[in-house]
């Protein structure tokens, strides 16, 4: 994780030093997932690709690219393309701009003609998407259009059906409509990104006429950053929460010195207004399932008193973990992550103090701590980083904060039991374990991309992959949901087995969310999985464990389930189970009987 690739980055530095930075990222030795990305461009895309590569590497994704010939996005998409087929992309990015709009309305066109032009233009792109979906079945990222560089009619361009501004707005609305109705299709909001950069700089025609770039080359890092954020989100590499400082981060002043009356938050003066707005911004994240935690050097009572300030937008209840003490911040941070069963790097550290940011990012590799210079930049710097870029919004996401709260309740309940099994029984757990169903494809794909620790093979699947396996007789698929008396944990575990020959089934995926660790859910899953195997006439189950930097916790998974180790090669172990020898192991979860 290189700081120079976080927002606010220096685009000139990145463009000039791209080769060096790439080398540095590769040398860092992080474990990368490899993804094939096809860029179908409507203009030159070389630098867009190079910048995407840096940002993706920084997110642990090592891309291999296919790049269409200059302005061949349409031909590449709608006609047979052996090279692209061989390439077998994981993601296709259609990088077009308003330079690819074929014809705009003329002032003397009647409304019908204008509508027809709109339809024609839209249909061109629609056929690109339909063809790509059919041929390659992978996620598609599509630019919408930036606004035009000039306005013939001035402000009337926005309201008159003949206006280019109006025309582009209409097209963008249709693009958005398609994105809303189609899974696996994501808009890259060029309209916003170009406005954010400054449209007249963005549209400087020098770069188009000299080099056929549809935008200012200096702006390219911002575009690539956005595309890379969409991609890392699709592959489950979003952050999951904030760890926040208090003094001079959530309010102005130091509560230990200034007292509750003295800290600045709320409508009374400008500084307080900034902090109140920042608190509202953070609080909005809860709707996305982003969790908020506190890591502050303070007396605990003072921290709570500050959150009880009458004008504070955030209250004690909005946080999952509150660490307010005098321990080093990196230690608190680590503990917060551990108690939440999350990796430290999935939490973003927000602290106004550069020294604290330094110690946390030095001690905990991979943790992001954006620069915060002046209060009025706090929102911009967090927001533009796209830590939580949303590509899917599942019901589980919306309920995530509730789930973490319930988990804290469970931890408390556990303290009152001496026998662990009694505790598990007291949870009154109910499992729902069934073959994949369409309503869960998205969540299943999401889980396969997010799970790192409780993951035997670390294979990642798109929604299309999941759907394909669900409908293939050669696969045994199971998802598991877990409910208990404190609430619904949602869909937390997935198993996929692939039939080999007549009576062998190989487990190709076994994952579980760490939030249900030590609940015996894995036993309930294995019981059901073996039963399904028996129904299909399977006699032997084979399981593989492929080690990664993160999945040591499941190294002995198969031993626990009564498998025998058959082979070991460089950490990769192979295990087998004779299904006739299997004894059901779950005694604490009541599971649906079908």
């Amino acid at each position, binding site marked *: 994780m290189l700081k120079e690739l976080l927002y606010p980055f220096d685009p000139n530095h990145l463009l000039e030093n791209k*080769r060096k930075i790439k080398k540095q990222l590769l040398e860092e030795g992080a474990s990368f997932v490899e993804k094939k990305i096809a860029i179908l461009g409507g203009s030159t895309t*070389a*630098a867009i690709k190079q910048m995407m590569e840096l940002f993706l590497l920084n997110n642990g994704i090592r891309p291999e690219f296919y790049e269409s010939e200059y302005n061949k996005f349409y031909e590449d998409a709608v006609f047979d393309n052996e090279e692209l087929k061989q390439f077998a992309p994981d993601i296709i990015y259609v990088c077009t701009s308003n330079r690819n709009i074929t014809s705009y309305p003329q002032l003397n066109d009647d409304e019908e003609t204008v509508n027809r032009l709109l339809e024609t233009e839209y249909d061109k792109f629609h056929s690109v998407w339909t063809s790509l979906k059919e041929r390659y079945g992978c996620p598609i990222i599509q630019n919408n259009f930036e606004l035009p560089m000039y306005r013939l009619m001035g402000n009337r361009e926005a309201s008159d059906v003949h206006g280019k501004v109006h025309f582009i707005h209409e097209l963008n609305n249709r693009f958005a409509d398609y994105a809303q109705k189609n899974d696996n299709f994501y808009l890259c909001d060029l309209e916003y990104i170009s406005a954010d950069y400054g449209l007249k700089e963005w549209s400087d025609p020098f770069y188009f006429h*000299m080099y056929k770039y549809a935008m200012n*080359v200096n702006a390219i890092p911002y575009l690539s950053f956005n595309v890379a954020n969409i991609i890392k989100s699709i592959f489950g590499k979003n952050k999951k929460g904030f760890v926040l400082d208090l003094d001079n981060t959530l309010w102005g002043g130091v509560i230990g010195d200034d007292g509750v009356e003295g800290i600045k938050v709320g409508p009374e003066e400008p500084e307080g207004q900034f902090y109140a707005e920042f608190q509202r911004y953070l609080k909005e994240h809860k709707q996305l399932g982003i969790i908020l935690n506190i890591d502050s050097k303070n007396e605990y009572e003072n921290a709570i008193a500050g959150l009880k300030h009458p004008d504070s937008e955030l209250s004690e209840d909005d946080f999952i973990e509150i660490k307010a003490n005098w321990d080093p911040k990196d230690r608190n941070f680590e503990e917060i992550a551990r108690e939440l069963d999350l990796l430290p790097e999935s939490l973003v550290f927000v602290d106004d103090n550069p020294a604290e940011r330094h110690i946390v990012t030095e001690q905990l590799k991979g943790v992001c701590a954006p620069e915060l210079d002046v209060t009025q930049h706090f929102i911009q710097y967090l927001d533009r980083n796209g830590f939580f870029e949303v590509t899917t919004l599942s019901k589980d996401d919306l309920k995530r904060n509730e789930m973490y709260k319930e988990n804290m309740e469970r931890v408390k309940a556990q303290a009152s039991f001496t026998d662990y099994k009694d505790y598990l029984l007291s949870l009154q757990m109910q499992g729902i374990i069934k073959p994949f169903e369409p309503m869960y494809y998205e969540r299943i794909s999401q889980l396969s991309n997010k799970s790192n620790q409780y993951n035997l093979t670390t294979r990642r699947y798109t929604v299309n992959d999941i759907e394909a396996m669900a409908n293939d007789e050669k696969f045994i698929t199971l998802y598991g949901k877990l409910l208990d008396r404190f609430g619904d944990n949602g869909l937390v575990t997935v198993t996929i087995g692939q039939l080999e020959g007549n009576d062998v089934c190989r487990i190709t995926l076994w994952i579980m969310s760490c939030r249900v660790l030590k609940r015996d859910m894995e036993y309930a899953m294995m019981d059901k999985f073996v039963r399904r195997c028996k129904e299909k006439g399977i006699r032997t189950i084979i399981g593989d464990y492929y080690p990664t930097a993160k999945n040591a916790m499941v190294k002995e998974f198969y031993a626990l389930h009564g498998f025998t180790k058959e082979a070991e090669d460089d950490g990769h172990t192979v295990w087998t189970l004779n299904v006739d020898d299997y004894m059901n192991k779950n005694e604490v979860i009541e599971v649906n009987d079908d």
Partner: protein
Amino acid sequence: MTREYVYQQMNRIFRNVFDDESIELHDETNAEDIEDWDSLEQINLIVAIENEFEMMFDMVEVAELANVGEMVDLILKKDSNE
């Protein structure tokens, strides 16, 4: 701005862009002399040079450049016109 200073900065930019510390620019250096110097890298060079010297080039000026020496002349001319 002296010619030496411009060369010093240009050398740094070329070395960064091509990640090659051995590059030494001369008046006659052109795209033939540096392996990765194609039209796509050309734009990266122009952009980096514009940013370094805080100036904008005209499309026509850029199109006519034949080698590094002419580039340096152009930078010095623009600088003295300011």
